[in-house]
């Protein structure tokens, strides 16, 4: 019993420590003044101000746009590669796995500057910042997309499923894209939402590659820091809620699967 109590104490202490910065950001955003120990002047005007600011909405739109493109591209690329690996050449999987995990070890700065320095002076399609950003984000989310899709393929036991479909007269391509893919759709969605959360939280890559050309919500947040503290915290809270919704989506889909018992 004593052990249990001390565990509860540790959990509560760490929880308070972790929640504190978020709570402070929130309080800071709903008070007009906080120059002494206690804040003064409860107000929601900062939320009204940003939620009616067209620039902020545009920045969220830009972030959405720049998330969707790499996620779709990455999904297609990995699915095609996994089709080859599962149906024809399982021996390639180890190379694909290594290549897909490298970005996880590299982290943002190195990926961003290596792409930028190579293509900044390159000919047309590459020197386009949007092309660079899309490609770089694709690499950034690759480890998560690969692992997610691979896990789902393992859970549905893809090779056996394809054999079964072939016995029933389906072609291999048909079996993979019309039988396997629909079966792992929820797994793909989970990885896609996770990737969206990663891109939504990215500042490194967009700041290095996009510079001032492409104002995503993180860049908008950064610029607001030099204008108004309250406004910055309100934006921080709104962006945090968006990432929470994305993770809630992941959680919801995973739980639904649990209840249906199709995945562990």
């Amino acid at each position, binding site marked *: 019993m004593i052990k*249990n109590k001390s*565990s*509860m104490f540790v*959990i509560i202490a*760490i*929880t308070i*420590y*972790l929640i504190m*910065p*978020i709570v*402070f*950001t929130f309080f*800071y955003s709903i008070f007009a003044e*906080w120059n002494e*120990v206690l804040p003064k002047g409860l107000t929601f005007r900062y939320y009204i101000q940003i939620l009616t600011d067209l620039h902020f909405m545009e920045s969220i739109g830009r972030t959405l746009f720049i998330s969707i493109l790499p996620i779709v*591209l*990455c999904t*297609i*690329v*990995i699915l*095609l*590669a996994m*089709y*080859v690996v599962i149906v024809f050449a399982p021996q*390639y999987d180890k190379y694909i796995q290594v*290549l897909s995990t490298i*970005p996880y*070890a*590299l*982290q*943002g*700065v*190195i990926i*961003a*500057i*290596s*792409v*930028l*320095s*190579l293509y900044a002076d390159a000919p047309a399609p590459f020197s386009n910042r949007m092309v660079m950003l899309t*490609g770089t984000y*694709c*690499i950034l989310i690759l480890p998560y997309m690969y692992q997610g899709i691979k896990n789902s393929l393992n859970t549905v036991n893809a090779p056996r499923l394809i054999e079964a479909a072939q016995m029933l007269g389906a072609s291999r391509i048909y079996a993979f894209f019309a039988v396997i893919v629909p079966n792992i759709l929820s797994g793909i969605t989970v990885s896609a939402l996770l990737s969206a*959360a990663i891109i939504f*939280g990215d*500042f*490194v890559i967009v*700041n*290095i590659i996009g*510079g001032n050309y492409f104002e995503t919500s*993180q860049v908008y*947040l*950064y610029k607001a*820091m030099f204008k108004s*503290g309250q406004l910055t*915290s309100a934006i*921080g809270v709104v962006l*945090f809620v968006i*990432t*929470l919704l994305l993770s809630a989506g992941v959680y919801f889909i995973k739980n639904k699967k649990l209840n249906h018992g199709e995945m562990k």
Partner: protein
Amino acid sequence: MKNKKSKSYLLALLPFVIVIFFFEIIPLMMIVIRSFMPLGEIGFTVEHYFSIFSKRLYQQAVINSLIVALVSAFVGIFIAFFGAKAANSTSSRAKTFFMSVLNMTSNFAGIPLAFAYIIMFGNVGVFVMIGKQMGFTSLANLDLYTVWGLTLTYIYFQIPLATLLLIPAFEGIRKEWGEAVSLLGGNRIQFWIRVGIPVLLPSLFGTLSVLFANAIAAYATAYALLQNNFSLIPIRISEQFVGDVVQRREFGSALAVVLMLLMVLAVTMNNRMLKWAKGEGFYDKK
């Protein structure tokens, strides 16, 4: 049908190969090659590496990065150890609650985190004001805009990550082992020193190297706190490519290679330590 010699299926691998080549392999190779080229010309030189370790500005960046990464990783894993231990010895409801807090706060990093710390510990931060009023000089004089302030901020994002990585490892520790130790006359401390920690060692080392890499390459938090006014490797790297001043891509590439080498070093040390600890126990990369 399977013996058909056609390798046309390899076409489906093409998109993957193209993306990987154009945005991962070639850019990385070019960084390594460029790091040995003189500024703005073709040739071979190691002068960039030489100046990283001889010029004070860059020495300072390496030292600061190492301090921030090492201290935040060790403090992070120390707290996470007790967090993960607690998570596995309470009710499953408390554990689920704790896990969701960890998952939620692991998203709180970069600029929002830096700003929250400015609110709390900045020059007119809430805690600094409380410290001034109550007379806690250490709190009142806390300077967020130094290596130690930055380390304090980094520790925040290390804790949820480290705890989430360690919880599965603690799940591997069986209750029966504790009972066996107490049957043999050992107490809880002896259990942890003789059984618990040795079993966890691979996971602890693995987590430590993830935390180190995570902190040494972190950019957004430091940039939001101090912009380019603080010497850290990632900040100095990005400056060489997007700076308002002169861009020196070759030099920046050398810095990037140094950063990569430091991360490789962390992984190698981790493997060495594992071998030293005889590599027993179930090592799980996740």
